[in-house]
């Protein structure tokens, strides 16, 4: 749709002149592009902005259409959420589960991805990637049964295990495509110089893969932080993570919208700040393996 407005007739006859002079149509396309980009940005940002605004409103103001944008901001919602509802505990829980499951998944996943990439173990990789395809619910009933028999439900261990199940396939997938792109020659020459294969992996490949591991680690942290279903079933009152805590917010009779929006903001802000600082890594992780034939 965007391309329709580029020069057509001039390009056919005199392409050189057409491009140098920038005819009217090209200017029209430029304007269209700016307008379209602004529309896209508004569409993506406006809802988040609305959530942020509402989190600073009293519930009376939220019900008042006249005070959509002009109102006296209040910090009460945040005070409520953080103090009365113990959100600091949930923030810590979310952080701890995401951090440990990411760290352990990196330890297991990076060597696995390396072996799978170097020895082209496609079928083995498929086993790990199955974890990304399978519906989580089908695993939860057996997990719940086994772990509740082991008296582990409600503890951090089982939450971390279940989140590793999300993180590990992601890490293996991203790191495999990263190792695929890393030249073999460096390792080979290190081995000629007397390093063992494992030594070459540890001293040459790993230091070269820091960017890849950062990508995989950040994405796996975000996915774990955002995970809802596993924590919904497997967390207890002491290990509840933020998404579950927000969900519990609406199970009361009437919704405290201001508080709910403050809670939603508290969950999303940390992850967005991380995302802003690590933008490059997130983009390369999201697009890993997408452009290979």
């Amino acid at each position: 749709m965007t391309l329709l407005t580029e020069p057509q007739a001039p390009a056919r006859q005199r392409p050189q002149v057409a491009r140098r002079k920038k005819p009217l149509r090209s200017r029209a396309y430029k304007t269209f592009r700016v307008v379209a980009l602004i529309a896209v940005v508004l569409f993506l940002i406006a809802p988040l902005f609305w959530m942020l605004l509402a989190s600073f409103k009293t519930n009376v103001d939220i019900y008042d259409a006249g005070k959509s944008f002009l109102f006296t901001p209040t910090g009460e919602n945040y005070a409520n959420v953080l103090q009365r509802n113990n959100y600091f505990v949930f923030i810590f829980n979310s952080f701890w589960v995401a951090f440990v499951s990411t760290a352990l998944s990196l330890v297991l996943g990076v060597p696995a991805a390396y072996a799978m990439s170097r020895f082209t173990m496609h079928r083995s990789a498929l086993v790990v990637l199955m974890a990304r395809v399978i519906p989580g619910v089908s695993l939860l009933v057996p997990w719940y049964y086994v772990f509740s028999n082991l008296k582990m439900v409600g503890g951090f261990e089982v939450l971390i295990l279940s989140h590793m199940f999300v993180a590990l396939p992601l890490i293996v997938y991203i790191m495999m495509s990263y190792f695929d792109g890393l030249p073999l020659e460096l390792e080979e020459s290190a081995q000629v110089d007397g390093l063992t294969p494992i030594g070459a992996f540890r001293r040459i490949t790993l230091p070269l893969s820091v960017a890849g591991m950062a990508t995989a680690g950040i994405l796996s942290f975000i996915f774990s932080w955002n995970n809802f279903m596993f924590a919904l079933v497997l967390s207890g009152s002491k290990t509840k993570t933020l998404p579950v805590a927000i969900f519990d917010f609406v199970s009361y009779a009437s919704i405290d919208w201001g508080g709910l929006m403050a809670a939603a903001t508290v969950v999303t802000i940390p992850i967005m700040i991380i995302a802003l600082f690590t933008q490059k890594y997130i983009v390369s992780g999201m697009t890993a393996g997408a452009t290979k034939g």
Partner: protein
Amino acid sequence: MSVLTPARTSGRTVNAQENFSAWANRHRKWLFAAPAMIFVGVLIIFPLAWTLYLSLTDSQGSVRAASDFVGLENYLTVLTDTERFWPAVGRTLSFTLVALGCEVILGMGIALLLWRPFRGEKWVRVAILLPLVATPVAVGMMWRLIFDPNIGFANQLLGLVGIPPQPWLSGQDSALPTTIFMDVWQWTPMVVLILLAGLTSLSDEPDEAARMDGANAFQRFFYVTLPLMMPTVIVAILLRGIDALKTFDILYATKGKGGGSFHEVETLNVYAYGLSFDYNQYGLSSAVLILFFMIIVGTMWLLTMRKKAVSK
């Protein structure tokens, strides 16, 4: 790894360590790959086998309670259930197809807008990233407020252009399209990122050659760029499609148990979750899950085949 630390003590330890090092290096392929595979394998294969077993029994109430083997009865019940199961299949497929369609078309449009460098590119990229990383449950709550029929911003906005208020999430027919809209808002950015990576990796030459031959922009996109992009488009569909089929968070966060009081947004995943954890019908839910799993694997297989055909 410890194998690499030079041994300082007696000759015997050195020997043992050397032996271990040699052994480790010889078997490094499986030494590296096995832990991750065992971890995932144990957590998948055993539960999957159990789900398969449960689907052949009348287990309910508690998994611990005695249950009888009923053969394929659950599958028969599920496959003849036109009240919950088939509508859920329909909703899952329409949710996935419509959301995916919008995301790929919008995503391609936005990726083309972003393709050539421009001023302020950085800010647009930040805007694209934010929905993508936002916690889905929080996103669901955010849209709940915006789409609230009485106080929501969506109806205020419609009021400005003179359109009467809509029921959005609380309407029986409008709930599913509204959740599709939410999915499109959150995940179009991911499609944009993937397609943009594909566009940037394309070489300029085919496009340039077509331009020299007098092809217009429209022709160049449909006959040059799009065919070259097809493998990337299919990767995007594959990655997004798997997640779209399994969508749970925003549906459960906005409509709760059973996908709302009329099951307006009850997809297979929500249905199976409800059967398992709200109604404890383990036998039935396992049958639903096995069928659901077959649908997902079937779709993936078809897409992978298509990708292979396109790449050739």
